[in-house]
């Protein structure tokens, strides 16, 4: 699937993550800022990539500002950002959720 518009989900509170999805052309590109990047940068990217994969999104620019969010939070924020970016907030993808 293709991203239709730039969309954002999440906050900059501690233990949250803010994810902004925009259109991309060359796979999934990351711009990651995280307090725990040294320990968890790869894990964070993997979680987001897998979640994008659930929607068949292969091209995206992902800007991540992470404040130490746990995996489930990262997944939830990514899902919301995707629904918004696909302009599909009214039609949640139940199979993914």
């Amino acid at each position, binding site marked *: 699937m293709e991203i239709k518009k730039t969309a954002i989900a999440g906050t900059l509170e501690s233990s949250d993550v803010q994810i902004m999805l925009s259109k991309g052309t060359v796979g999934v590109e990351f711009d990651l800022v995280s307090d725990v990047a*040294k*320990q968890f940068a790869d894990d964070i990217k993997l979680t987001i990539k897998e979640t994008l994969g659930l929607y068949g999104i292969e091209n995206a620019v992902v800007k991540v500002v992470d404040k*130490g969010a*746990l*995996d489930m939070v990262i997944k939830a924020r990514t899902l919301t950002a995707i629904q918004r970016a696909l302009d599909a907030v009214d039609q949640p993808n139940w199979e993914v959720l």
Partner: protein
Amino acid sequence: MKNKVNIDVPDAILEQLDDSVFESTNYGNPEIQRVGPKVRATTGESKVQSSIDDVLSNTLKDGMTISFHHHFREGDFVFNKVMRKIIDMDYQNLTLAPSSLTNVMNDIVIEAIKKGVVTNITSSGMRGTLGDAVSHGILKNPVIFRSHGARARAIESGEIKIDVAFLGVPNSDEMGNANGMNGDAAFGSLGYALIDAQYADKLVLITDTIMPYPNTPASIKQTQVDYVVKVDKVGDPDKIGSGATRFTKDPKELKIAKTVNDVIVNSKYFKNDFSFQTGSGGAALAVTRFLREAMVAQNIKASFALGGITKPTVDLLNEGLVNRVMDVQDFDKGAASSMKLSPNQQEIDASWYADPANKGAMVDKLDVAILSALEVDTNFNVNVMSGSDGVIRGAIGGHQDAATAKLTIISAPLVRGRIATIVPKVNTVITPGDSIDVVVTEVGIAINPKRTDLVEQLKQVPGLPIYSIEELQQKAEKIVGQPAPLKFTDRVVAVAEYRDGSVIDVIKEVAD
């Protein structure tokens, strides 16, 4: 060479510092020859100087060791004033040996290092930009971290030879009789500075308030003081200590505090005349409050409270629930301002407080210590020095010293954000697991298996979940995942000593 907590200390470091590796928490009964300061005799005349420049010219030479105290904490003006002059007068190769370094000192220390003014540092700890700079290798020689008790020991033995001590005080008379209790920038106990006053060759007091002679109570005495420098302001009262300490509303901290209290009151140490030490964090303050209720309910009184003191502890003194407060520093205004009111709130120096190499320190008599941790590992080793990213951001403080208590409790959340507190291996071992008896988290406790007596006592307590430390570690890992290992170079940027002066761990330069 490997030490007792399985840390491989490079031989070159041991040679450079003439140190041995950590073997045991038991100090034994060695005989120690202490050193004495050099004294230039003076009589009568006033020691007050209006400018620090002449004093520096008269006292300081390249290559010397200088010291400061950190009782003004983030409100300190003295450190920056003196260091500014020292840098501007182009001194070189100094060793900086303060009792600790606070954030307000960071910028000027970094400048002094860059200009070659400071080439060696020993401290209780460091944080912020300075910790970051040292972790990235700004200093050629490794920083030496010592506990408050170990600093006193090292000064007494001459390992740290202070050539000139610059001690800020909120009041002094013209001859140097001074205390920390009165004046605009009062901070209470002068505990850490008293060792410098006793052992420095040259002692320079910096104050903003000259009192009529003779000034009492005199924590620092005129017999020790060479110069008194009058400045406009020694500190910002609002930043010296926190204001009124508020009771935490954080449910996680409250749960931890309540569990710590359960451990204490159900241990054999909770009886009349017991003694305790708590820290200054939210959970520690809450413990004091829970403990008060238990003491009232069971009609138990404590013989003394020790260490860094807060208002809730002073309240226990005033209520008659604690007989003496033995005070090496004051964390808030309430504690700082009450010292002068009560002879039962006794100022103690760092040696009396926590030094293993004397004829008996107060920590030796301590029953219960409640301490914090950045990390605890499955061997119960505690890190209070380096962050989860490997960067220096803490201080030993009195951690190693107070941990020698009969019941040492570490209170810490299982995880902080995405960072596990209970880990397979801590980044830096500061306090050895041998000293730690119980680890308390919000999900339950772990008891050091060698304390079979505590296991027996505490397993009877209803509603107190007991896990193995490995189980707690796994619970934490299940929540946050497995972090990628940190990357370091081979270069040692700091050495953490145990309280006996042996090397317990080294901190390496971070690679990024």
